[in-house]
């Protein structure tokens, strides 16, 4: 019953979107639907579909290690949606996540007054905006990430910019993500103009382009490779990849931003990662965020 209700509401929201959709996001919309179709097919039954999707995985691993019959929204928790053993640990850690106090610290940062009497609250009167970034600024004709918007707010108020990877930036974003999740908001990326569409297309091309000395694309690991194991990693899917940031990574032992994660990942392809506030990074994130459109914001979260 509940699932039917959910389906119905998803359908209506689709309908709503397509009614509202201008031609600019027609392609993006189609890309997203195709992506969902692919992932649902891939994780319908990994053991049965070994020859189709998991040629290189050991049979016993496919038999026991994977969750089956996954649907679109299941991918919101990334690789934990299919990796059983990892999922248990994830849930054990989520019983008392290590970042909880950061949400409150983030709220303090939100209301803390700058020297000029303003605060971050002045720039972001509504803290439930985690799903609206990155957005295409039609006046400036460029993609603005949340991290960039926060630093621009600080600078506009004569405050020092924050490190974009961790520390205060991640702490404050934890509060925004939490507020957005509490308000049960979803990823809501828009493609309003021709320029925005072009930015989306460039981000998409970046995602699928093989790069670095290992000649890997983002897609190699996170579309075709999603769910495959590399050493001890079951690679995560593009769907839902940006909905849970900032994350506390066990590897970092602290909270970090999406940008921190991204540059680590691109570095692993064997090339110099683009700068965190570069056009390339912003457009790449724009594409990725659009692919998660309609999925609930569930940050901050824990990852390995």
């Amino acid at each position, binding site marked *: 019953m509940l699932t039917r209700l959910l389906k119905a509401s998803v359908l209506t929201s689709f309908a709503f979107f397509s009614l509202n959709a201008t031609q600019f996001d027609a392609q993006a919309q189609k890309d997203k639907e195709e992506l969902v179709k692919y992932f649902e097919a891939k994780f319908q039954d990994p053991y049965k579909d070994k020859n189709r999707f998991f040629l290189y995985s050991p049979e016993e691993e496919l038999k026991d290690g994977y969750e089956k019959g996954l649907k679109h929204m299941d991918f919101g928790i990334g690789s934990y949606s299919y990796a059983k053993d990892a999922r248990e640990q994830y849930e054990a850690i989520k*019983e*008392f996540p*290590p970042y*909880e*106090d950061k949400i409150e610290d983030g709220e303090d940062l939100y209301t803390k007054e700058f020297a000029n009497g303003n605060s971050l609250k002045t720039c972001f009167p509504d803290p439930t905006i985690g799903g609206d970034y990155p957005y295409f600024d039609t006046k400036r004709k460029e993609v603005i990430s949340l991290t960039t918007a926060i630093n621009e707010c600080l600078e506009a108020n004569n405050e020092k910019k924050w490190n974009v990877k961790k520390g205060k930036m991640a702490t404050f974003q934890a509060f925004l993500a939490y507020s957005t999740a509490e308000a049960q908001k979803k990823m809501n990326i828009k493609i309003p103009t021709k320029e925005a569409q072009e930015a989306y297309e460039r981000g998409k091309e970046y995602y699928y382009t093989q790069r670095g000395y290992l000649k890997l694309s983002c897609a190699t690991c996170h579309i075709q490779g999603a769910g495959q194991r590399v050493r001890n990693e079951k690679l995560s899917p593009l769907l839902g990849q940006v909905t849970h940031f900032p994350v506390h990574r066990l590897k970092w*032992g602290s909270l970090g931003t999406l940008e921190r994660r991204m540059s680590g990942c691109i570095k692993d392809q064997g090339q110099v990662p683009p700068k965190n506030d570069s056009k390339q990074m912003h457009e790449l994130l724009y594409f990725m965020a659009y692919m998660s459109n309609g999925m609930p914001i569930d940050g901050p979260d824990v990852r390995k």
Partner: protein
Amino acid sequence: MAKTRIKAKEKNGVVTVKTLSKHPMLSYVEAKRAKKEVNFITHFMAEANGKVVYEVSTSQFLSKDPYMKFKFTGAKKGDKVTITWVDLKGNKDVSTKKIR
């Protein structure tokens, strides 16, 4: 300042407590590598209504910011759980939370 966050819930007479304590838990090996002094929580105790309800002597091998989950009976909603821990250097922390 209290360094332990506590969640305590009562259901059907059983109180479930989850705690997270801020502590680096530096083992001998880690401390040497980080050129810091060894320090970790050595004893951790919970009380409710004047009775010890959970008690553990701990080592250097609990994770950073150690987590504890435990259950006990004999307390109701509104009662308080008090957590007390000491570390190797003798620092002591006491935190209290009402059972919900």
